[in-house]
């Protein structure tokens, strides 16, 4: 019961902050709302007993992605802000489309009987198991992911600095 209450708290936080991320006129506020959303998602992960994920959610998303985003916003800020319109002309069709899509899928979800799928909480050391899996069964995807990150790193540096040379 207590978990249900926490779920609703997090869910409301997620939805409201996500909406603000999308509609906020100031891109800087959007980034801050995004941080709140991601933080609430970490809370949902905790409700799901995924503590490790909650940890890296906070570390990577909030600690890295959001910070990086804010950094870029700062770099480009001169032409941002309230003066320019922040939304394009297809707001209404997009709204309709999103609502229709969401309603259709939620209807399908509601029609389905989930009662047999009750969570069977058994506590075990998930992080240790995750570590074992990542370095044994999933070692090749793991390495691939590291290579991907390296490439992204080099790529981003190359993209940004090539431009510098042209100047």
């Amino acid at each position, binding site marked *: 019961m207590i978990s249900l209450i926490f779920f609703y708290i997090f869910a409301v936080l997620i939805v409201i902050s996500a909406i603000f991320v999308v509609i906020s006129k100031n891109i800087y506020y959007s980034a801050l709302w995004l941080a709140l959303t*991601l933080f609430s998602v970490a809370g949902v992960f905790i409700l799901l007993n995924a503590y490790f994920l909650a940890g890296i959610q906070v570390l990577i998303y909030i600690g890295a992605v959001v910070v990086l985003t804010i950094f870029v916003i700062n770099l480009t800020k001169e032409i941002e802000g309230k003066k320019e319109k922040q939304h394009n002309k297809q707001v209404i069709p997009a709204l309709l489309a999103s609502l229709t899509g969401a309603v259709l899928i939620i209807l399908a979800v509601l029609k389905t009987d989930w009662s047999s799928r009750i969570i069977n909480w058994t506590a075990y050391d998930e992080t240790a198991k995750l570590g074992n899996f990542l370095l044994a069964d999933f070692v090749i995807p793991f390495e691939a992911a590291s290579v991907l990150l390296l490439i992204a790193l080099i790529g981003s540096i190359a993209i940004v600095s090539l431009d510098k040379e042209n100047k």
Partner: protein
Amino acid sequence: MLTLMHFIILSVILFFIGIFGVLTRRNAIGILMSLELIFNAININMVAFSKFLTPQEIYGVIFTVFIITVAAAESVLGLAIILAIYRSGQKIFADEMNLMKW
């Protein structure tokens, strides 16, 4: 009682909020942030299904780890591209980048 349905509905709502953002945000950085919302919706879905359907296995969690990795890489590259465009003197509004037109 907390059921799988709750998480899925949360995930759907978050996903379509993200879609709405992608479709309407003019600022390219805003679009990237909306994409992060979509990724998170997917992550919630993944972990919820994994925990409810196969509580003893952690494949869903591992997938989430990889999704977070890829999302991080993607957002880094996206931001780098935005920065490059910005530096070349153009605006970073998506509806003004229409060179690929007929």
